[in-house]
């Protein structure tokens, strides 16, 4: 919905403006956290980590490490108390009694160079008593499993997270809607399937890095690669027992986040060590190998789906159970479980639902948010079941989806109503672009060709009161400076923010600067750059800030010209009057105001606009039924379609074509929306074909790019098509919704459905490696042994 207060001039919103930070990024001038120079007082930190997935710490001896010349500090769990975590405070900075995954921090060293820090690690002596690990979430949820967090009942927890003290279940989200038991009898077809989705890792090109410094006065500064500077200020300060305003987080550009740099993970280690060497900046830079097993990973999932429909293909019931492999600490992961729970049906209207989503502690790496927040994992199985159900009643899979997919007004699994959505349009456009229903011959005799399609939905998963804010100032030259606390992690947040500020205030895009780096001392508050919420939430705050500044300008000029503000507008940086046709550049009054009409003194003053935004109407859900008025702010929906070939000689998959169609409400920057769709599609393809953290007895077997393969420039589909659908969001800026995460949600099932179309085989889970495909074809008699 266009805000009435918005300028009538030509708007940069909806135009594909070039990235605001592109020039500094191509010249090497762009500053990332590891690039900041600290001089020769800089200390280098390294972490002594648990080699066991589950162990009791019997003794930690730091004496020899402390004695090594060049070592400035050695710390362990004894030096710090308290717990940290976003939704559930279940994590210690350094382990005290117990370690819970291979890589769990036991001690930390700061030394004058990385080589000495590394040597000191070898001098730290730790005695462990090895305990039985939990390596499987289904077993972990059972009463037979060893208890990993006996203190679960004492942990501080958000009101909407429901842990089960005395078990390894740190959240149990339920939906009980309608009557599933009796619905099965009315079904013409019912299927039941089980899927295992492996752990994967974000693998941003920039590894995690944090530099912390504590002043003699106790004030803390943290420079880091972060999606969440404000959340880090809050959580780290609280855990270390300092007040939030004494903790300053400076977060320069982020070299890829994908959720892995949200919340707090390794940053607290750097800060904790720095408290013991006041005055020295302490840098902790994860190696690529540490990135793979000690930073957040995407949780594994074991999912069972039971679903049924009538003979017309109407979905009647779903019974879904999710066991999330949350890892050693589920402080952030508990909410992934909840998000998957309230979205458990996928983008379909289902009258009868029983769903149980369990977050389970295991002795695996720490599960955390990753692009899609549970949705790619959940949709991976769900969207294959939809295909199978359609097949069972003899209906085309697109037709089946056409009938069942959510429309505006459809009833949601949590009870409320769906807002207007372009999901049907996404479905039709994706099907059309992939030539659905037409079978092309393979490109060679040793190939099989197939097509697949999948739908998706995803809502921003966040507390109901996650806030954004923004400010706007003007300089003497008329340039507008926009302050925001959101982070550009590559998705283009600063560019889109600048476009929105320009449009809402009335200056050209080129006249906007974004005040960076984000610094909690000077930047306005932002909850976190996660959940694809920035365009929508920060965007609304920016509009409010721009309108505030604009109103100040218009009121001032109206007074000076003796006109009413309603007759004035700001167009391309000029205040114009439609009534008198007078005009004045904003820069002439932005700082120094205007003289009073009688010449005696001045009026106005430096223009500064402020705005904030917080969703107001998200309600809680009933803990027993999962029902409530409004579970989330909105859902972005979309579809992907894939055409591929399977090579019968090797099992290799070649993606011929990928199509993405998403309803973004309004594309503020269409090219960048398409870039998100492309990047997400390729990341989705990568997760479908290559990616898996190979866990054996709790140890990641492939913690490097040598053996954790991701898509390269040679693995692209021959053609990719991105389609923007725009059904406006009523409370979105210019109607916009987020698109960052959604673009990789339906990729795994779209590929799985295409593989089935090609060779008639389904798999328990990705990655669909050449080996897995080939051996399955062998089993099925498609190729010879």
């Amino acid at each position, binding site marked *: 919905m266009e805000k009435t207060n918005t300028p009538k001039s030509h708007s940069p919103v909806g135009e594909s403006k070039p990235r605001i930070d592109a020039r500094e990024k191509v010249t090497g001038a762009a500053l990332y956290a590891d690039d900041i120079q600290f001089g020769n007082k800089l200390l*280098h930190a*390294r972490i002594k*980590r648990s080699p066991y997935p589950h162990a009791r710490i019997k003794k930690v001896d730091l004496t020899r490490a402390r004695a090594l010349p060049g070592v400035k500090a050695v710390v362990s769990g004894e030096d710090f108390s308290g717990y940290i975590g976003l939704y559930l405070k279940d994590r210690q900075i350094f382990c005290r009694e117990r370690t819970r995954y*291979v*890589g769990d921090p036991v001690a930390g060293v700061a030394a004058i160079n*990385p*080589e000495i*820090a*590394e040597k000191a690690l070898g001098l730290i002596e730790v005695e462990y008593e090895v305990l039985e690990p939990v390596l499987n979430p289904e077993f972990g949820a059972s009463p037979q499993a060893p208890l990993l967090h006996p203190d679960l009942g004492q942990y501080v927890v958000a009101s909407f997270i429901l842990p089960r003290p005395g078990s390894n279940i740190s959240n149990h989200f339920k939906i009980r809607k309608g009557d599933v038991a009796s619905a099965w009898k009315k079904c013409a077809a019912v299927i039941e399937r089980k899927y295992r989705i492996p752990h994967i890792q974000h693998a941003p090109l920039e590894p995690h890095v944090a530099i912390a410094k504590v002043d003699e006065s106790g004030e803390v500064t943290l420079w880091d690669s972060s999606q969440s500077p404000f959340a880090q200020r809050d959580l780290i300060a609280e855990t270390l027992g300092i007040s939030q305003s004494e903790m300053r987080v400076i977060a320069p550009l982020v070299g890829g986040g994908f959720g892995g740099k949200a919340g707090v993970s390794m940053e607290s280690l750097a800060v904790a060590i720095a408290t013991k060497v006041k005055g020295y900046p302490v840098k902790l*830079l994860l*190696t*690529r*190998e*540490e990135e793979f*097993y000690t930073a957040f990973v995407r949780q594994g999932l074991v999912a069972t789906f039971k679903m049924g429909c009538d003979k017309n293909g109407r979905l009647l019931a779903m019974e879904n159970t999710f066991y999330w492999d949350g890892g050693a600490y589920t402080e952030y992961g508990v909410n992934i479980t909840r998000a998957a729970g309230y979205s458990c049906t996928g983008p379909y209207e289902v009258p009868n639902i029983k769903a149980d989503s369990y977050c389970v502690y295991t002795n695996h790496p720490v599960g955390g948010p990753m692009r899609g927040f549970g949705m790619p994992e959940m949709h991976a199985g769900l969207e294959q079941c939809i295909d199978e159900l359609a097949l069972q009643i003899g209906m085309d899979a697109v037709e089946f989806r056409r009938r069942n997919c959510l429309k505006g007004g459809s009833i949601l699994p949590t009870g409320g109503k769906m807002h207007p959505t372009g999901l049907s349009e996404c479905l039709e456009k994706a099907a059309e672009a992939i030539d659905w229903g037409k079978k092309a011959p393979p490109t060679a005799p040793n190939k099989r060709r197939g097509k697949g399609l999948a739908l998706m939905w995803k809502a921003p998963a966040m507390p109901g009161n996650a806030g954004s804010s923004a400010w706007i100032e003007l300089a003497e030259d008329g340039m507008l400076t926009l302050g925001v606390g959101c982070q550009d992690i590559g998705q283009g947040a600063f560019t889109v923010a600048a476009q929105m500020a320009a449009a809402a205030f009335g200056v050209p895009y080129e006249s906007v600067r974004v005040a960076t780096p984000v610094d909690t001392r000077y930047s306005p508050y932002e909850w976190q750059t996660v959940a694809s919420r920035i365009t929508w939430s920060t965007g609304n705050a920016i509009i409010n800030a721009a309108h505030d500044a604009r109103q100040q300008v218009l009121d001032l000029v109206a007074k000076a010209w003796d006109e009413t503000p309603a007759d004035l507008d700001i167009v391309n940086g000029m205040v114009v009057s439609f009534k008198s046709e007078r005009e004045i550049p904003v820069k002439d009054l932005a700082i120094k105001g205007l003289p009073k009409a009688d010449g005696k003194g001045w009026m106005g003053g430096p223009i500064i606009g402020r705005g904030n935004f917080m969703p107001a109407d998200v309600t809680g859900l009933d803990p027993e039924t999962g029902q409530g008025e409004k579970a989330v702010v909105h859902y972005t929906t979309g579809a992907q379609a894939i055409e591929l070939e399977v090579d019968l*000689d*090797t099992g*290799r998959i070649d993606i011929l074509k990928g199509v993405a169609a998403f309803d973004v409400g309004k594309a503020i920057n269409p090219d960048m929306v398409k870039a998100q769709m492309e990047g997400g599609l390729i990341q989705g393809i990568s997760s479908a074909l*290559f990616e898996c953290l*190979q866990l054996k007895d709790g*140890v*990641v*077997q*492939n*913690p*490097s790019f*040598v*053996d954790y*393969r991701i*898509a*390269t420039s*040679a*693995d692209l589909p021959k053609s990719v098509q991105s389609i923007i659908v725009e059904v406006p969001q009523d409370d979105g800026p210019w109607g916009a919704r987020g698109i960052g995460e959604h673009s990789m949600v339906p990729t795994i099932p779209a590929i799985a459905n295409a593989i089935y179309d090609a060779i008639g085989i389904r798999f328990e889970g990705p990655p669909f*490696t*050449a*080996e897995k495909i*080939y*051996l399955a074809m*062998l089993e099925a008699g498609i190729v010879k*042994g």
Partner: protein
Amino acid sequence: MTTHTHPTLPEFDYIQPKTLAEASQFLAQHPDEARPFLGGTDVFVRMRDGFLTPKFLVDVKNLDGTNDLRFDPQAGLTLGAAVNMNRVIASPDVQEHYPLLAEACRLVASYQLRTRATVVGNICNASPAGDTIGACLALDGVLHVHGTGGLRREPLATFFLGPGKTTLKPGDIVTAVSFPVPPKGCAGAYLKLGRNKLSDLSLVGVTVLGSPDPGLPSRFRFRIVLASVAPVPLVAAQAEAVLAERAVAPESIRQAAQLASEASTPIDDVRASARYRKLMVRNLTEMALTEVWKKLQK
């Protein structure tokens, strides 16, 4: 596999000898502490991983002709140890006379890694996965080794003893690898199966070189070398014999491929299972032989 990796290269002393003799002498005097290196693409990685902890790294590039790439119509090709793979790929002589070698180099890692990676380094690392070793074996490569006792020649065929193990002794430095002029009318293929289309290590690699040979019953001679499916680069001798004895045709090619597969002894690892590797030896050998056979018939 290691999870604990150094943040930097561990400490060592860089040694740059002026002559081969000096280099050999230093290496022989520090048999457990010194290690020669060329491009370092393998050594540095293994040092970060903690598998190698040399006290001295001896740079054997830029020594007495190690940068030369020479072709002579009679003597054949000599690649100096320091000649990087991109130079091999770009060399018109290699492209014309040894296209199999160029193709094998092209499938190694990435362009920027190949600026450093060398064929001799690939050979000396003696990884069963080495992409260029198959071509070097099939092309009858001979190593030029400088040891404390002076220069000697060592045929590749007997060079490999196990993963990372060769006949080289402390003080030995490979200065070049040379190849005779390939048989007239020969054709080759290197088929590599990685997880990604390019840039990965080989899960299985199959090198085939075929040439007319009137002395054989089939009138064709085939060399077949397998990567990543045995402790050393594996010459599939029985498969080669079948194609020397029987007329070359789809049936004998299939039989040879089957024999190659049976000769392989791959292991299960994070990259692939032994079972899949064995099957892929069969399929890739059949494909490579078929491709080479087609070229030979032209």
